[in-house]
């Protein structure tokens, strides 16, 4: 039980780190939209992969779950990207 909890905690820590690094690099590349676009897309891909791996480790993997992560990532990336390209 405690091993499973540790596993989950490490998953969330990894997600926080990944999103934090993506956001940090995005801010560091301020006023360089062409480079920021790459960071946004990579962060979106990271999120989808994290969702797939996390739910597989929790034995909750399902195609609907994967699709949900893909669509949430697509929505977030579209909003983020369209804003960045207007700067």
């Amino acid at each position, binding site marked *: 039980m405690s091993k499973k909890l540790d596993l989950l905690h490490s998953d969330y820590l990894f*997600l*926080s780190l990944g*999103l934090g690094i*993506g*956001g940090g690099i*995005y*801010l560091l590349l*301020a*006023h*360089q*939209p*062409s*480079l920021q676009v790459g960071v946004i897309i990579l962060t979106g891909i990271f*999120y989808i992969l994290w*969702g797939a791996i996390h*739910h597989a480790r929790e034995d*909750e993997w*399902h195609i*609907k*779950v994967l*699709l*949900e*992560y893909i*669509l*949430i*990532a*697509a*929505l*977030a990336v*579209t*909003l*983020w990207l*369209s*804003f*960045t390209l*207007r*700067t």
Partner: protein
Amino acid sequence: MLIHFRNLFWHHHHNNHKPKILHLSSLTVLVILVVVFQVALTLFTRLKPGVLGFAAHISADEVVALTNQQRQTQGLPPLQSNSLLTQAAAAKAAYMFAKNFWAHNAPDGTTPWFFFNQIGYNYRYAGENLARDFGDSGSVIGAWMNSSTHRDNILSDHYNEIGVAVVNGILGGQETTLVVQMFGQRTAAVASVPQTAAVAVAETKGSKTQAEMAFSQPQPQKASLSQPVWQWPETMLTQVGGEYSEKFPLLSVFTLTKSLNLGLAILVMIVLAIDGWLVWHRQTVRISGKSFVHLSFLALVVLLIILSGSGQIM
């Protein structure tokens, strides 16, 4: 109507205990709507320039004052405004609009030094900073100061004169505001060949790297046959030290996109927060992703959109 609204945002057995807006079909529609809206906005700005654009409140005098403020904090003497440099900066901005490019060097090979020479400013040292789509003078200076090459120009002791032009126009089919900042130190004697020149070059486009370009030696230049002949509009030559007095667009594309994107993201976040709480509170079992994880990703995007300002530098 009320039932439909409830199903969209609240748990109910009609929506399988998941707000309809979080269903896969609704999320797909939301993504498509955002894309279609952005494409429509881009097409509209191209077909109807001047209605939507970028509303900037930048003053050339303020840019000069803030530049000198930065220099004084480093113990450097302030730069004197020079009308020739201001005209050269205005001409460079007009040239970018006329030739539809955004760079130090034009696609036809015209370098920044052409504008110094053309206006009759014989320099010993010269430099150029560019910015576009910023909302105010402080943001422009802030962005330049955060870039080493642009900061080097602002804080260079090689320069003693400055000229700034703030010009509105249409670039790439979009209403935009360009800021051109030119630095110089004149030669004691009139000469057409510069001894040294430095230009802050953007970190992105272009074949050369920043380091290669930052202290590049420009080719000897004369306003002669080797240079493209281009006459800038007379209005450009008269706007010494001030902004180009063109009408501002009615609505900023940037502000519109930012507001709508933030609004949509926050709406989905609120639904996710309520959904997450209800799932936890009612111990609902369902095949689904984790609401609070989705919420954190969208919160990051909202935070970055709020923290990020507009504008590009080169």
